[in-house]
């Protein structure tokens, strides 16, 4: 029972983090940047692991964090200096970094206990096993504290600098004109994204974190036209996916993170179809009422 609680809490923290940042990624048309970072941090994790030999969350976050900050820099460098399109630049850079990580894992995996599947798909079910024990007191899983710290940081920036992030996302040239340092804010967002991805990676893996970054935000985008509502709705869908995913995995005896991503996908299509149906009904209603008026 306690295990279930820790797993669900981890899921909620991860999805809330991802949704807060994901909304901005979506609106800045950088959704694939999350994909890029989540993959490109792999060599950082492996190298940190090879150097220290520990699977401590802090070590992993430091190793991944370096790559998480360097990757957007490399991508933007190619985009600005060589005039490569952003999507092409993302495609080139994250793939070679990710591949490097795979090569490193496959070369050294015999010596060290680092599982390819675990890195790629994550294993949220193991979260309750890695406990933080202070003296003799059991403080709960370590991952929870890391995720809580990330959440605090994300909430601080998103709430305190709401207007700044809103202006730089909607109209960067206007933002620059009124004296906002737009590049700085773009970098701040990239750092938050890196931290979010890195901390989420342990529980949902490098691949599925993309689903939580993009899908709930996209679902919310279909339902509202206010930025803060979009964030709240995205978080709501993220949490629903967490619960839905956990119980789906429980009954099918499958991967929890996979089920979470699947549920969030189903929610997106559900909302999309409801929207289409609503529009159709609305149009038919209009058409009918026009015809009735004509006949009268």
């Amino acid at each position, binding site marked *: 029972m306690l295990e279930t609680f820790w797993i669900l809490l981890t899921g909620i923290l991860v999805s809330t983090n991802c949704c807060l940042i994901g909304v901005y990624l979506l*609106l800045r*048309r950088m959704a694939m940047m999350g994909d890029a970072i989540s993959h490109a941090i792999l060599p950082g994790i492996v190298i940190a692991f090879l150097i220290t030999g520990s699977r401590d969350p802090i070590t992993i976050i430091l190793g991944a964090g370096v790559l998480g900050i360097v990757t957007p820099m490399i991508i933007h460098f190619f985009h600005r200096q060589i*005039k490569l399109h952003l999507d092409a630049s993302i495609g080139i850079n994250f793939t070679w970094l990710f591949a490097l990580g795979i090569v490193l894992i496959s070369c050294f995996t015999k010596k060290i206990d680092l599982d390819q599947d675990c890195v790629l798909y994550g294993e949220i079910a193991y979260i309750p096993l890695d406990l933080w024990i202070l003296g003799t007191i059991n403080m709960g899983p370590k991952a929870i504290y890391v995720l809580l710290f990330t959440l605090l940081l994300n909430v601080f920036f998103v709430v*305190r600098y709401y*207007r*700044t992030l*809103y*202006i730089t*996302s*909607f*109209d960067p*040239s*206007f933002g*620059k*004109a*009124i*004296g*906002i340092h737009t590049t700085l804010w773009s970098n701040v967002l990239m750092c938050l994204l890196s931290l979010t991805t890195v901390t989420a990676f342990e529980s949902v893996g490098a691949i599925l974190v993309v689903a939580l970054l993009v899908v709930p935000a996209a679902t919310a*985008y279909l339902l*509202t*036209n*206010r*930025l803060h*509502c*979009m964030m709240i709705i995205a978080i709501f869908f993220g949490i629903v996916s967490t619960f839905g995913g956990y119980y789906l995995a429980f009954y099918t005896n499958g991967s929890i993170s996979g089920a979470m991503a699947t549920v969030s996908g189903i929610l997106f299509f559900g909302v999309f179809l409801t929207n289409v149906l609503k529009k159709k009904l609305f149009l038919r209603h209009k058409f009918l009422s026009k015809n009735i008026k004509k006949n009268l």
Partner: protein
Amino acid sequence: MIIPAKNPIIEIHDLTVAYQTKPVLWGIDFTLPKGGLIGIIGPNGAGKSTLLKTIMGLNPINSGYIKIFDTSIQKVRQRIGYVPQRESVDWDFPTTVFDVVMMGRYQYMSFFSNKTKDKAIAMHCLAKVGMDALAQRQIGQLSGGQQQRVFLARALAQEADLYFMDEPFAGVDAATEAIIFSLLQKMTKEAGKTIIVVHHDLQSVRHYFDWLVMLNMHLVAVGPTHKVFQPALLQKTYGGKLTLLHEVENLLQKKNINPREHC
């Protein structure tokens, strides 16, 4: 022909701007007067928008310097308003008309400040452009002319002294153009603001602007519209294409000639 302004609000000296290694503006050197509606005209690719953005400090400068209010742009940001090109933003962004106008109050507001006054100013500015009824509308539901008026209201909310507008008349209908022009005129004539507008429609130039910058990568002419807006300088600005048009026009003006026969 470069006519210096008596009481300059902007001074540009020997400005060169390049993208990568390709120069866009060459040796630009002029002053602009305080007050009035100032137009920047020139053909496509002449560097009109680049000049505007460079003056506002949005583009890096390769050589030369720019002075606004006799100092650098960084110190007077609060006195400057900006209307970017309408196409430069995503109109499907989840936000309302009112929120966009509130962006203009950014520099006046802090996280903990009381925003009642700023909200009132934003509403007042929306009323000035006749959009107050649509304050809570999502921006994607607006027509092109309405979008342009929202941008204008946001600039008004900035309460600046000097405004830069990038093609505010592009893609709006005649009625909206008239509304916008009368508003700009009110701002310059009654409130003594200076407004610099990138413009592309030559027909309205004489009617709209007090002062004109004619540009084609290098500076062709600067001065009061009635002095610089003349065929010789226009030809120099627009090159061959306009020459041809001009000749056709001259031919047509000679009443007895039927253009078809003449060919």
